[in-house]
């Protein structure tokens, strides 16, 4: 008997049969377990990434334009654009007009009210009154 046959003889001889249906059930279970583990790992990694991103974004946002003064942090208005500011003013013009009318009406002496509005450099109403007269 040559060496190769002898090796083959050594390793053979234990042909036990296997329950195929049981094996398939075990295989399906193992696959689902592996799938579950993988999805849990992916969720964990995504959660960590999200925390890191939110953390970095918060840090950048809070750090931007903060001015430290007198033990407190103050945020500058540099991150508010001029267009936003103009829009805000435009919307509030009517409110300030109403406020000016209210001051004139409530004040006994109309000239005191005018001088006050002149003092705060609020021209709209004064111009309007001048045009009317």
């Amino acid at each position, binding site marked *: 008997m040559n*060496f*190769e046959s002898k*090796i*083959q003889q*050594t*390793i*053979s001889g*234990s*042909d*036990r*049969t*296997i329950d*195929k249906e049981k*094996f*398939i059930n*075990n*295989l399906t279970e*193992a*696959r689902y377990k*592996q799938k579950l583990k993988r999805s849990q790992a992916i969720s964990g990694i995504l959660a960590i990434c999200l925390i890191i991103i939110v953390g970095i974004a918060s840090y950048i946002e809070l750090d931007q334009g903060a001015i430290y003064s007198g033990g407190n942090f103050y945020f500058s208005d540099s991150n508010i654009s001029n267009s936003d500011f103009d829009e805000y003013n435009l919307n509030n013009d009517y409110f300030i007009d109403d406020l000016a009318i209210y001051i004139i009406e409530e004040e006994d002496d109309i000239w005191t009210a005018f001088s006050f509005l002149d003092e705060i450099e609020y021209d709209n109403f004064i111009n309007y009154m001048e045009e009317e007269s």
Partner: protein
Amino acid sequence: MKKDRELIQEFQNGDEEAFNELVRRYLDLVHGFFQKITDDEMEAEDLAQNVFIKLFKSLKKFRFESEFNTYLYRVNANTANTYFKRNKWRNILHLDQTDEPSYVDNQQDREWKKEELWNAISKLPKKQRLVVMMRISEMLPFKDIGNILHMSEGTAKVNFHHGIKRIKVLLGIVE
């Protein structure tokens, strides 16, 4: 009876029962292969399970460039190779515990234990190990072994020859 190709295509279209049919068809071959490598029934079953889990993932992308049989042998060989690497140290320690072979006049006639033999095979270089493993466990022709391991028939023969020579040395067989 459906052909392997049909079953794989059905599986690729989402039919898991087609995969189970493939498992039923090839379980004896895969399990038998690992039974020859390991004496532990549980271990053989675990390794067979690993092979089918790998197949479940890889068959979805299988492009029929080779026969399914060849592909399956390739997965078997890679799984066995990983098993050998994983158990390298365990095998060494295990071998230390085995009894010394009793004295015999002719070493050629001595019966080796299966474990002793596989431990010697696991010490071979990767290519030799894979060729020897496929040849002695599946008794495959060198041409098929070459196909499975992406090498020529001649290279498979040469690797087998060197592998056997080295095994003889490792088993202490004097020619």
